[in-house]
């Protein structure tokens, strides 16, 4: 077994890198793959919270690098999905605690035991990004349909290209079909026109993301929302399967109809 090492990055903060990493990792594990999600955001770790594993973190990958513990000791196994692991970051250290060579060595150590190594990259283009990207072969660039996010994604793509990462694929996150229809939000094609890389998935804006984040349960574990389906589709595409893009307009329409129905029937929103 030799894992595919994929970095999830964006440049801009708050676009959904960590959420994407957690959900794609969980989805890949659901498809029977052995996956480790590595939180490369040293000092600002969040992946453990989103995956609901924060209470089980004892060691982190800085401990592994500094040989305070073994890799096996630092890995946190998710008991809900077979084959899903987390390698947390240190919260009490800074990004200077690791260098690109150490990150490459860590990924090499993980490769034989997994099918996928997903690296959750910190925001920015400095050391944290360079460390995370150093160990990866492929990249997923996450952007939201906003001009600053797209510009930062473009910057990151340029840097990834110069580092020789391939393929570099795009996730458009938090798209609101209604706003796109009204001309108030960048459309998928507008973004692709600027970024000129392959699109691997479009994730619609979905309030269930907030619930899932706060509950510490990746959405792809329950498949109860449009965003969960979108992430599952992305995981399938990563596995090389041909999955058509979701019809987001129907989701937008369904959302409106559901709201109308709830208004007239007084029905409660499904949790």
């Amino acid at each position, binding site marked *: 077994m030799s894992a595919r090492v994929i970095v999830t990055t964006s440049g801009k903060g708050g676009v959904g890198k960590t959420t994407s990493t957690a959900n794609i990792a969980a989805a890949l594990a659901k498809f029977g793959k052995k996956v480790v999600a590595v939180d490369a955001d040293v000092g600002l770790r969040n992946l453990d919270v989103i995956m609901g594993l924060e209470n089980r973190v004892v060691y982190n990958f800085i401990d592994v690098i500094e040989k305070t513990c073994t890799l096996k000791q630092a890995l946190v196994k998710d008991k809900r999905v077979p084959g899903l692991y987390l390698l947390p970051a240190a919260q009490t250290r800074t990004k200077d605690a690791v260098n690109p060579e150490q990150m490459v060595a860590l990924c090499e150590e993980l490769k034989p035991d997994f099918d996928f190594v997903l690296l959750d990259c910190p925001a920015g*283009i400095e050391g944290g990004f360079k460390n995370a990207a150093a160990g990866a072969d492929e990249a997923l660039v996450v952007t939201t349909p906003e*001009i600053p996010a*797209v*510009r*930062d994604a*473009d*910057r990151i*793509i*340029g*840097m990834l*290209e*110069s580092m020789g990462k391939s393929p570099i694929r795009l996730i458009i996150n938090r798209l609101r079909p209604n706003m796109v229809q009204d001309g108030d939000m960048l459309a998928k094609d507008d973004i692709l026109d*600027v970024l*000129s890389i392959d699109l691997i998935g479009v994730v619609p804006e979905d309030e269930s993301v907030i619930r899932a984040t706060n509950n510490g349960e990746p959405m792809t574990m329950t498949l109860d929302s449009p965003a969960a389906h979108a992430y599952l589709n992305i995981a399938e595409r990563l596995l090389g399967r041909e999955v058509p893009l979701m019809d987001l307009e129907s989701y937008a329409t369904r959302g409106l109809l559901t709201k109308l129905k709830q208004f007239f029937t007084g029905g409660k929103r499904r949790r």
Partner: protein
Amino acid sequence: MNILNNPLRKLRRPGAQIKPERTYYGLKFIVPETLTEDELLKQLAGIPPNVYKLPEGEGVSFDFGGRECSRRLILHMINSIVWEKGIKILAWLSVNPESIKLFAAAGLSVTEPEQESESPHTPEPEQVMTESVAERRHIAGLKVVYTSMRSGQSIEADGDVLVWGHLNPGAEIKAGGSILVAGRLLGVVQAGAYGREDVFVWAGSFETPQVRLANKLCYADQKSTTCWRKGVLITLEESTPVIREYKFLSGDKK
């Protein structure tokens, strides 16, 4: 389109202003004879430091014309301009015999540097392209980039630049000559960066909020120009930026 001058504008106003001119060895500052020595020193001190940032091996010259330069002026220039700003002065030019004599007595070069060969000088372009994987070609003084340029990527060239792709937001080109972007012009371009005004910017689709030609700065947006998202040619005419949409007649008659 609104037109604003950049910080160099005071060098270019008609009248008694120092004028930089691009040469094969760097920059030549033409000093008007009508300026008093104090005004001259004040203007020199006010030139932004980035104007003097020249490629390695290049320098500047000062052309004083028929002015009779005093020892005080030379001493002030060496003290506050040369030593203070670290400028490499290759020549002190003048047609005034007294000035020439004074320069020579101080051991200063009074002639312009010779060209290294008899063939037309084609300076090695200063090529700075950070974090870029863009394929580049150098065709007789013209730098060609065969891919789109992404945010954060930049090119600096002495001559002309052709981008056979888009110039994305956040990407920059600074050229001593003209700039042609075949695709969408979304980033920042500066043509005639060293003072040349006989330059142009050509864009397949004009979508940038700012264009710089020589020392002129032009702002544009969708509301202020009818050329937005159209192919354009931007030139300087009597030091004023002029933007033209290209509409070619095919010659067909209805």
